[in-house]
């Protein structure tokens, strides 16, 4: 099917369109990051949320993954990973945390607490999370300080997890 119209015809209509959004049909809606349970969840302590984003960021970079590559490896959406790393107010989905725990080989329950999806009723994790967040900077490359902060935190997650999670 051809549609022959003058240049002026097209330009006049393009100018009329201006800055309008034009999407039609459900398929045109983009899945943004879901706000799954944002209201329903009790707000997790700010510091553990910072630590969760930082943790994901550092673990990803330690493996030399881009956000896309981590998304691929963990069967997750890159857009959600971006939000996790950069928005400390974001509460991730349950499945996301499970996939990250699996990918990074850390206990699910502890990561859930860190992400604010399970109540961390031990002060130890919160303290460690604060320490970790304070020691690590979100920079291009993993510095040796970040590396050791990360190592130490992974150790804390792994050692304390099974015992205290119950």
């Amino acid at each position, binding site marked *: 099917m*051809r*549609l022959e119209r003058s240049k002026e015809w097209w*330009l006049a209509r393009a100018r*009329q369109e201006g800055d309008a*959004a*034009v999407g039609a049909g459900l398929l*045109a809606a983009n*899945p*943004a990051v879901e706000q799954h349970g944002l209201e329903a969840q009790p707000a997790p302590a700010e510091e553990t949320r910072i630590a969760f984003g930082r943790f994901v960021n550092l673990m990803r970079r330690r493996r030399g993954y881009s956000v896309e590559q981590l998304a691929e490896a963990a069967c997750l959406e890159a857009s959600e990973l*971006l939000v996790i790393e950069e928005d400390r107010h974001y509460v991730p989905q349950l499945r996301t945390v499970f996939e990250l725990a699996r990918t990074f080989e850390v206990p699910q329950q502890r990561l859930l607490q860190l992400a604010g999806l399970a109540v961390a009723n031990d002060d130890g994790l919160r303290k460690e999370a604060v320490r970790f967040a304070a020691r690590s900077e979100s920079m291009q490359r993993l510095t040796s300080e970040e590396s050791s902060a990360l190592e130490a935190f992974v150790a804390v997650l792994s050692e304390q997890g099974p015992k205290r999670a119950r």
Partner: protein
Amino acid sequence: MVDVSTIYLVDGATGSEVRAELRDSIEDAQLVDWQLKWRPAHDALIRELIQKGVSRQQWPQSSHWDWRRKAAQVQGLLAFRGFCVLADGETQGMAQVELTKSARAPVQAGKPIVYIEYLEAAPWNSPELGRAPRYRGVGTALLSAAIALSVEEGFKGRIGLHSLPQAEDFYRRRGMVDLGPDPDPGHQHLRYFEMTAEQARAFLTEE
């Protein structure tokens, strides 16, 4: 056989004219662009919104599904009749149409229409964040194509579509009849719009 029409868009930054192609098919190249360009551009937009501290309520409206499901549906577009707009070697917009639906507006109820199942402009042509689209006119070009197809099919230019909430004004301004939120839950309350034969004639008139 893909028919190619020459169309013109407007450069969002300079206001100058841009020669583009309207093609009456969606092909592999579009799906590749969608995967490798549209999605990363959307992710970049989300990243920018976060960095600017834009509250989530003001983010682009979105649907319940995840990207995997959307990707699967986009892959499926190859099987349907569709259109795309190409400029700068890139897919600037896509639409998929269906020819088996009937009109709902009282003046033409029951008559065949071209139903626009899907119409989307590339993220860089979308006005989110208040920045100028790279190209203006992509949506209008796709809409024009659907109307022209309707004429060619003997449907006299009648078309129908479900508008995304942020696009309702665009379709109202094009003179389409707003038939309100669709009662069918499958459409997630999107408003249904229809263009009558008369409106289509006015739309396609060469001034």
